[in-house]
């Protein structure tokens, strides 16, 4: 059952990224490039996703627990620390350089271009390295 849920949610998420144009780095850069010929599409993607998720969460979180687990797993931290803001800064830098964030990168990986494979390999290396670098 877990495998089916994961596969279905991943597929819907991926198709959403493709339909919205966000799997195409040029489209994302077009949004971030505010002094160029600006492409506002990403704002509508975020608007649609935020609207549905905010409403969905509000309804779902009234339940005692999710259908296939005993509790909801919602982050509870409220403090703003160096790790959060420094991490967001590094992420923004990498995102702006190429126009791929993790979701679209994995979708692009399915297109099997050398560019996408290179990016995803380094993305995985970065995810794996980060906590080990901090520990040193």
């Amino acid at each position, binding site marked *: 059952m877990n495998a089916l*849920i994961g596969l279905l949610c991943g597929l819907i*998420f991926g198709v*959403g990224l493709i339909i919205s144009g966000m799997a195409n780095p040029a489209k994302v850069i077009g949004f971030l490039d505010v002094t160029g010929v600006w492409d506002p*599409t990403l704002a509508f*993607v975020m608007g649609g996703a935020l609207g549905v998720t905010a409403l969905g969460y509000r309804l779902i979180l009234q339940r005692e627990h999710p259908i296939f687990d005993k509790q909801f797993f919602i982050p509870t931290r409220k403090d703003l620390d160096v790790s959060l*803001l420094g991490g967001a800064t*590094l992420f923004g830098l990498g995102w702006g350089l190429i126009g791929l964030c993790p*979701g679209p990168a994995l979708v*692009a990986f399915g297109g099997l271009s050398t560019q996408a494979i290179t990016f995803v390999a380094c993305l995985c290396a970065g*995810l794996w390295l980060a906590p080990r670098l901090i520990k040193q």
Partner: protein
Amino acid sequence: MIAEFSMWQGLAGGVLIGLSASLLMLLKGRIAGISGILSGVLERSDQWGWQAPFVVGLILAWPLYNLANGPITFEINENLVLLAIAGLLVGIGTRLGNGCTSGHGVCGMSRGSARSIAATFVFMAVAVLTVWVKRMITGDAL
């Protein structure tokens, strides 16, 4: 100047992303944050059973969509060194910052989390600035 843009495709795609995030919360009670899910797969977390299939679903979206609707537009910078640096930065940054565009930008902001709102503001601002500087230096935003 504003480019020709695709409001309805954007909204429709966004709605699907929201549906996926809501479905994952309803069924498993988990946040649909892609960097967190991919980290879980790499670290063989106890949630591997749904996380790995989620990643497989994301990867299969392209070939399946391609079969049904034909080729997908994909324009990207072809410099492999730049791609590698950007990939590393996105990986390290999202792991340290506990989330990316999906986890903080969509799921976190939907719940009004202060940490997610701050993180989203920071990575958006830095990304806009990065594109601006890149255009100044190379003459091309892509």
